[in-house]
Structures are given as structure tokens and as C-alpha cells.
């Protein structure tokens, strides 16, 4: 018996049944900012893991571009040093590393890059395919993209080849600058070539929100205004700004976390079921969901949004300085390290359900979660004192750490009396699967190489997220509301408690 079909000339008969593993096609990965921190800390280790798992074609080469003067061998040494114990697969990829030194606006840099790329097409067989990764400061994304365009490097040079551009948040500082950045990039690259990374979407548990919602019949029917009382999204960090004070002074929590990570988690929570879990299916629904978020009126920002900044305090048993005492931070800085806000969503599913979002640095512990609190039962047939310890039902999606799901429901306390209390049922992904989940960068880098944009941010998503931020930024620029202080190691400023307590609700203690 043979299962060989008549199309065997076109297909690879031996690949049958082996197609489950993703593998990059031949290509050159060009890293701008190759001598920088992001390259050494994230991109090279992710590449090494991909190489070790044989997820890269042997015809993958890497070109580093940066202002620092370095030879090919210097860059190779940098790559080896960035990944201790990299192994033979990494050594082999490093041997296919090249380096181009030069300024990002200097035509000589791009002419040299063009020559190296052509050489690699010949010597390594990279087939004219390019993935440009901009690991530089965001201010020069547009310059690099446009320079690539001017030198004819932003379009495929041969039939069937691809050219992609990967950029990382922040995508602009506000709606206007984000749109300007896109206009500049689109001079050289079509939207389909642009891969915007928000590494949160590379996290296995963020993707699990989709699995939980759309692969299970029990959750979706209650995922709406009829059953949900309100939703709390928390992205809390226990760390301070550390050495990133200089950067943070120009960003703040709203631009650094809320506009991207929080909005992405919110969009996955709000969105309608897509017809298909593919790139456009999911991204269309996310944009629709964000579009339904009601914009805050200019005078509502003072009541619906709280910004805070951490003062000195104690975190996890250690005394830590306040934000204004951090390196490279202005002693009179008004940059926010904490944001809490209440948003409304105008659509059939969510009308009337408040969404409370909060994020901050130097909070009591590091945790990211989405908590849906359900409405109370229409009539509780127990005496009030029996139900003293009974809270409303809640479904909590924990994204980090200890990824999992908690369902809180009421149970009878054993004994002769009919006392009720809330109990938590925990599911931990870690305890169910010890399979190693790929690191977010590893996952996203491979997706960009393979050409799967599902987990990347489309330009209209960026616009929608900025649209929601605009009234807040405008109001803050006028100094309203002022920045509230909170002690490091607490759950944020008192004003944030008042924001939710006004609605007779309270923040969860995650």
C-alpha cells in the first residue's frame, strides 16, 4: 500500500505528519541597534533559543547595524557573550553574523548594508528575504524606515521574497505622533510588512484568554452585562524604575503600560468571538472592541482617572527610595508611576458595566490579572448573618505570575449552622503543563520570520488605543488632576480607592 499521491513532484512527501513545528524560512535578520541593551538582553537570547530548537533554517543569517565601530568578529563575540552556554547551534548561527557600523541617517550605512545583504543571499542562500528589527530608541524608527526605502531595501528584490519591519512600542507619544510615525513608515513599507511588537501578546497566558473565552462553552454565555457587575484589570509591578529613570521621565505609566499592555488585555477581554482565530479575524475584533470604549469628556478626567507617584517605602521587606529619589529623575518630577481609571464601553455586550483599570510601579506585589466580578444572586434565601462571609462570584484570569484561573464561589461552612463563605477554586497552568512555554520574544520573533501577524499590533489598534488616552493626556497637560503620592509597597494612592468606592465597590487584593 502506498499513500503517495500524484502531486508528489510539487509537495515534499516526507514532510507529511511533521508539519506541526514552525520553522523560519531562509532570511537575513537585520538588527538596528545591535550594540544596545535590548539586543543583548532579549533579541540574541531569543535567537539562540530558536537556533537550539532548530526553529531556524540553516540559511538564516544575522546582520547587526549600529553606530558603534565593530568588526564582524567583535559582533560575533558580543553575540557569544550575550548567551552563555549557547551550544553548537548558536555557534553555527553566530558564524553567519555580520556587522555594519554607521549612523542611522548616513547613506553610506545603507549602501554597505545593501552590499552585505546581497553577499549573504549568495553565500548563505538567504533568498532575498529580510526581517528588519528596530531595536533602537523609538525617536529614529521613522528615519531608519525611510532610509531603507530610499536605498531600495524596503521592497523584495526578487520574485517570491519578503521584506518585513519589526518595531517595538512605544508607537508614538500620542495619537498625532503615532499617526506621523505610521505615515513615515508607510512611505517605505506597506502595512502588511510592518510587525509592531507588544511583548505582552507573546505571553502564553495572554493568548490563553482567547482559549478560555472561545474554546469553552461555559464562560462565554456569562461574559456580558447580564451577569458581569464590573471588571478589574490590574497590571502591578513591585519594582521601581531602576536604571530606566531617564526614559521613564519622558514616558510615565500611561504611555509605558496603559496605552499598550493594558489596552491589549482589555481588548482581548472585551472583544466579540472572531469567526476565525487568524490575524485579521482577531485584530478586526480587537479594533471594534477598542472603538466601543467611551472617550472621557475633558472635565471627566479629574473624576474618572487617578495618577500617582510612589514615595519612599518598604517593598518585600526592603526599604526603597521614592520615585523622585531614583537615578536620572527630576527631584520635582510630576511623572506618574501609577494610573487608575474607570472606562465605559458602549456596545450591547458591555453597556453599563464599568471597567476599572490600574497599573503602577512599587506596588505591594507583582501581578497581572483580569477579574470579572459577577452580579449577586437576585434573592439570597439566607439570613444576612449567615452570608456575612459570602462575596460575589468572581472569575479571575491571572496572567503573571503563577498563570491560571481562579473561580470564587460560595460554599456552606461545615457544621450544624447554615453559614456561607466564599471559597476559591484555583487552576494553575504551571501545575497542569510543565511543558516549557516559549519566551515572549522567542515566540514573536519566530512569528515575524514565519510571517504570522496575529500577535502583532495593527496600525488601527495603535490609533484606537491612543484615542482613548488623548483626553487624559490633554487634561494632565493642564495639570488636572494633580499627581497623588503613595507609599512604595502599598496598592496605590488613596484617590484610587475613592474612585472605585464611589460606586460602592472596592479594589481586589490580588
Amino acid at each position, binding site marked *: 500500500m502506498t499513500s503517495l499521491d500524484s502531486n508528489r513532484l510539487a509537495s515534499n512527501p516526507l514532510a507529511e505528519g511533521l508539519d506541526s513545528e514552525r520553522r523560519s524560512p531562509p532570511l537575513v535578520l537585520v538588527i538596528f541597534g545591535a550594540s544596545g541593551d535590548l539586543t543583548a538582553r532579549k533579541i540574541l537570547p531569543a535567537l539562540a533559543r530558536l537556533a537550539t530548537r532548530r526553529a531556524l533554517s540553516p540559511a538564516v543569517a544575522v546582520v547587526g547595524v549600529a553606530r558603534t565601530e565593530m568588526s564582524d568578529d567583535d559582533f560575533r563575540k558580543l553575540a557569544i557573550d550575550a548567551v552563555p552556554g549557547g551550544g553548537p547551534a548558536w555557534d553555527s548561527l553566530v558564524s553567519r553574523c555580520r556587522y555594519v557600523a554607521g549612523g542611522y541617517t548616513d547613506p553610506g550605512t545603507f549602501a554597505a548594508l545593501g552590499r552585505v545583504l546581497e553577499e549573504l543571499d549568495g553565500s548563505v542562500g538567504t533568498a532575498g528575504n529580510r526581517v528588519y528589527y528596530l531595536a533602537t530608541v523609538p525617536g529614529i524608527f521613522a528615519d531608519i524606515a525611510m532610509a531603507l526605502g530610499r536605498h531600495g531595501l524596503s521592497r523584495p528584490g526578487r520574485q517570491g521574497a519578503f521584506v518585513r519591519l519589526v518595531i517595538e512600542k512605544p508607537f508614538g507619544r500620542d495619537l498625532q505622533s503615532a499617526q506621523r510615525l505610521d505615515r513615515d513608515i508607510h512611505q517605505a513599507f506597506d502595512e502588511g510588512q510592518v510587525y509592531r511588537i507588544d511583548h505582552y501578546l507573546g505571553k502564553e497566558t495572554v493568548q490563553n484568554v482567547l482559549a478560555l473565552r472561545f474554546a469553552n462553552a461555559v464562560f462565554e454565555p456569562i461574559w456580558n452585562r447580564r451577569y458581569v457587575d464590573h471588571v478589574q484589570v490590574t497590571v502591578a509591578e513591585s519594582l521601581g524604575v531602576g536604571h530606566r529613570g531617564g526614559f521613564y521621565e519622558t514616558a510615565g505609566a500611561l504611555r509605558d503600560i496603559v496605552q499598550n499592555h493594558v489596552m491589549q488585555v482589555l481588548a482581548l477581554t472585551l472583544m466579540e468571538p472572531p469567526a476565525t482565530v487568524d490575524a485579521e479575524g482577531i485584530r478586526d475584533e480587537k479594533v471594534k472592541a477598542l472603538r466601543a470604549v467611551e472617550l472621557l469628556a475633558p472635565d471627566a478626567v479629574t473624576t474618572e482617572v487617578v495618577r500617582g507617584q510612589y514615595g519612599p517605602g518598604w517593598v518585600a521587606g526592603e526599604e526603597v527610595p521614592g520615585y523622585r529619589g531614583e537615578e536620572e529623575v527630576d527631584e520635582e518630577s510630576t511623572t506618574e508611576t501609577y494610573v487608575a481609571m474607570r472606562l465605559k464601553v458602549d456596545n450591547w455586550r458591555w453597556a453599563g458595566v464599568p471597567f476599572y483599570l490600574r497599573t503602577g510601579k512599587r506596588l505591594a506585589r507583582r501581578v497581572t490579572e483580569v477579574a470579572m466580578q459577577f452580579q449577586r444572586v437576585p434573592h439570597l434565601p439566607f439570613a444576612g448573618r449567615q452570608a456575612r462571609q459570602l462575596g460575589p462570584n468572581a472569575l479571575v484570569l491571572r496572567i503573571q505570575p503563577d498563570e491560571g484561573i481562579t473561580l470564587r464561589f460560595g460554599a456552606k461552612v461545615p457544621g450544624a449552622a447554615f453559614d456561607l463563605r466564599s471559597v476559591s477554586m484555583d487552576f*494553575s497552568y*504551571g501545575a497542569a503543563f510543565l511543558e516549557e512555554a516559549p519566551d515572549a520574544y522567542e515566540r514573536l520573533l519566530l512569528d515575524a520570520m514565519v510571517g504570522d501577524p496575529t500577535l502583532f499590533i495593527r496600525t488601527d489598534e495603535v490609533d484606537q488605543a491612543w484615542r482613548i488616552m488623548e483626553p487624559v493626556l490633554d487634561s494632565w497637560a493642564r495639570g488636572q488632576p494633580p499627581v497623588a503620592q503613595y507609599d512604595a509597597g502599598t496598592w496605590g494612592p488613596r484617590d484610587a480607592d475613592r474612585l472605585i468606592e464611589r460606586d460602592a465597590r472596592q479594589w481586589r487584593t490580588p
Partner: protein
Amino acid sequence: MTDGGVPADAASPGERRRHLGAWSARNATVGQVSGALDDLRQAEQRAATRTSVVNLVVVAADEDDARRAGTAMRRLGSRHPGRTLVLACQDSPGARPGDPGGKVGPSGVDAEVTLHQVGAAGRTVWWDEVALSVRGRLCEHLDSVVEPLLLPELPLAAWYVSDLPRPGDPLAVVADAILVDARSARHLDDPADSGGSGSEEVGPLRLGGLTGLVELTRRHPVVDLSWVRLEPWRRALAQLLDPPDLRPFAAGVTEVEVAGRLGPRTLLAGWLADRLGLVPSSIALRRDVHAAMSLKAATDRHRATFRVERRPDERLVRAAAAVDGAPVLEETMVQADDALSWSLARALTHLERDPVYDHAIHAALGLAASPPAA
């Protein structure tokens, strides 16, 4: 008897393993074993809340096979949250399933229950292991021992370490997938085929063993651990033929040599025969410790060779293609350090029928019936 928190040997770097408790008894009832599991988990609050994904039942013909499988499974613990039952049928040979003619002693069960904890990367997994020595006619009714001890609503994988289950084997009937290992199963292996290196050409599996395996795949989803372990070889060869300019050679393969131990070389030969539509006379088999495949192919204008092998001194599968004598492509794949545990983990993650495997052993049957060129 409970021994709390005794550190056990390390499974793999970065993993911490502990025994959280143990219990054993001779001539135990299934109810006692079940009670011991409950007690152990109650005594250890940490283990009481846990998540399980699979039941694994290991059926061994004797204590040696059971021990071998047990070692592989303990190493697997971290990737296998669930319950493992190791059943060894001891006593007279007649006590084995499929050999009802022998002498049969009185039925009985000796049991050992161990609660394990494995920690890696800041996460912890609990699993329990139940080792049962089954005697007498009870060996014919293993399902009655197994079913009360399974974690409910989870898939059941039955690993037949020594012999294939006979048709109608009640345990196989309730299992979601049957695990076998073409390399080590005694019914498949040829006692004369020690696996030592040699240049002489030899045949594939004996017809009888293969027929049993083909029959088994018709009745149940079968996951063959040898097949899982050979995936790097298959993947490497498939990747050599993947570039568009090399693909035409897949239709022009003229000669194939497959080396390896009996089971693995049979599976690879069957796979190539099936996927490439080869006639038995174009396939030569050679005995070796490590698996290797070598193909010669031609198109109208070019000749090519494709070679995949694992060298004795490294845990790498190397693959190379040459066209008209000039090297054109090389691939290397890392092989897992503990191949048996790795294959078991993979098998438990994909408990489903693999049509490519089913076709491959069917084709291997064809090769056995019409022996390849010697």
C-alpha cells in the same frame, strides 16, 4: 507509613524531586490501594490541590521490564502531572495475558504507592505512582484492577512494555491510546539481532510481530515510542528535500540504505517505502547501534545523495545533501539526553493515531513479506 519530604535523585538539571509519602502492602485489595492514595494526598495538603492531565498504565510481563519503565517514568514526572500505574504480572509464565495455557497460581496484588513532587522553573507538579505486582488469573483482568484507581475524566494511555495486548484485552479496550516500543518489545525483536554494528545486510522485523502491530493499529490508536524517537531523523531528511530545487529528487529515489536496530530500521524503511513509493528491491537494511538513512536519487540532469545519521560520540542527528557530488545543504538536530523519557513525554502529549506511522508499518509488512535485496 509515610516518609515526608525525602529528597530524591535529581531528574534533570534545574529540577527538584521529592517523595512526599509512600505506602506499601502485600496481598492488598484495590480498595486499600485507593484508600492509601487518598490518605497520602490528605496528609500532604500541598498535593491535595493539583492539576492532572493524564493516566498512564504500564503493563509489564515481569519485574525487570516494570523497573525499566518505572525509571523512564520517574524521569518524566515533571512533564506528566497525573497518575501512573505500573502493573507487573509475575508468577508463572502462564500468568501473562495471551498465554492462558500455562500454570496459574492464586490471584493477588502487592502494592506500593508513592506520592512525588517535582519542581522546575518555580512551578511544582505532583504525581502519584502506584506499582502493583499482580499474580494469578487476575493478570487476565487487569482492567478490574486499573479502573477503580484511575483519575476520572482523564485520558488513559496504556503502555505495553513487554508484549502487545491480545485482541480483546479488556485494558486495551478502555484505553484511549496504546503505547508500544518497536525497539524493545520482545515479541517484535529478533533475539539474534543484538543490535551490534555490522556491515552485513539483514531483514526487517519478522512477519509475525509486524502483523500483530498492524492488527493493533487497526483496533486502537497506537503510539510507538521508537517512531517518536525517530522523529529527528525523519524531520532532518524531510528538511533536506524541502528546498524547491531539491524536491524533484523525492520522485527519483533509486536506492535506499537504512541502518539501525531491528525495530527502528524497520520503521524507517517502511516509512520511506510508503512515502516515496519504493519497491522492496531498492531498499537495503543494515544492522547498527544508531539509526541512519542514505538515499540516492536522480532527475533527468542531476544525481543527488541524502544522508541522515547519528554518530556514536554525539547526541546530534546530522543530515547532508549533495548534488552531483557537491554538498548543498547540511542540517543538525539535537537529540534528547534521555531519549526514552523524552519519547514518552512526547507520546503522552500527542495521544492520537498517526496515519503516517500506520502507513509505514503497513509498508514494512510489505517489505517483510517480500524481503529486500540482500
